[in-house]
């Protein structure tokens, strides 16, 4: 075996040290279970129709917290992530809205779509200073 971390607590603790990032750990997976399963349901065309016809009625069918429902209805994806959402599941929501990954992901950065797109074309966000909160690097 290599000298890898076997201690799950130490392994998981490191993830909280990354700025502006929520790693989809068991804690988040459990919190967001039904939000993610709700989002997954939008892979079916008939469910997309029902969702588009009445978002509130459709989301009320799922055992999600009111906070989770509101975050989805608001398309506040950072809030969704905070409440246990995973981006690959949430993608079903923004795809149903007709948004691409580029458009939807940009909304989480606080940048305008134009600025985000321009940053990507210029080579993307630098890792400088956003690697570690603790080590300020």
């Amino acid at each position, binding site marked *: 075996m290599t000298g*890898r971390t076997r201690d799950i607590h130490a392994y998981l603790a490191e*993830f909280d040290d990354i700025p502006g990032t929520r790693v*989809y750990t068991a804690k988040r997976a459990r919190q967001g*279970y039904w939000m993610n399963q709700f989002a997954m349901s939008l892979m079916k065309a008939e469910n997309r129709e029902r969702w588009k016809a009445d978002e509130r009625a459709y989301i009320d069918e799922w055992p999600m917290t009111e906070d989770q429902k509101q975050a989805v209805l608001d398309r506040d994806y950072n809030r969704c992530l905070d409440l246990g959402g995973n981006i690959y599941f949430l*993608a*079903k929501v923004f795809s149903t809205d007709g948004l691409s990954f580029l458009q939807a992901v940009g909304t989480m950065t606080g940048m305008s779509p134009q600025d985000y797109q321009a940053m990507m074309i210029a080579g*993307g966000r630098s890792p400088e200073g956003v690697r570690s909160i603790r080590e300020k690097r």
Partner: protein
Amino acid sequence: MARISAGVATSHIPAIGATIDNGKTGEPYWAPVFAGYDWSKQWIAEEKPDVVIIVYNDHASAFDMRIIPTFAIGCADRYGICDEGWGPRPVPEVIGHADLAWHIAQSLILDEFDMTIINEMDVDHGLTVPLSLMFGQPEAWPVKVIPIAVNVVTYPPPSGNRCWQLGEAIARAVASFPEDLNVQVWGTGGMSHQLQGPRAGLINAEWDNRFLDLMSTNDGETLRTIPHIEYLRETGSEGIEMVMWLIMRGALGRMVKPLHRHYHVPASNTAVGHLILRPAESSSSEV
């Protein structure tokens, strides 16, 4: 005897699939992405692999939160194309090689890998975009495919070391299949990308290129010990997909000969990386 003749690494960005499907590969934004695959298409037309083992991850398409296999191997005769929200991609269905797939599945379990065997599954962009990049838009894919789906969504994904070991075991399994087959292993996903939160859009071209160097020159002692946290810190939260490249790399043996390399930023939110590698040793089964 079946043999692994080459390994291919490539990003599997969904926007690349949409661009191909919509006939927009010539647009200025996209042309440099695809230019790096021109050589690869010619090469693979000459190589004519019989079977490609495609290591990829499902992106909440075929699997949801009810069941999360760490390593799943497709043993079916065919795989449908997922509807990821805009209808299925207009690409041919994927034809499996059930004989070889079951042989590998059985061999891996005997070799103490805790595989999940899958007999019915649709495949998403993680598997079909690499096929499109390498083969363009044929009526039918010119290879049979064995999907190996790796969990890189819910933490922890498998360690880099475990991925490498799985690659080695796949090589042993292929080498013990009696039929004469030209087999490639593809590792997909990556490179730098983060699709979530205020740090979204992160790209680390320096780290990516060092990884491409190591994939081409290192015997694995460095590659397989890169911890998950390093992928996340350095290449963004979705950069973790690169552990899947290690399965391909492990299947090629200790040393490889790089044939082709391509790197471009950006495609959508992501850095595109692509490698073609040959096993440097006479037989990859001697690992």
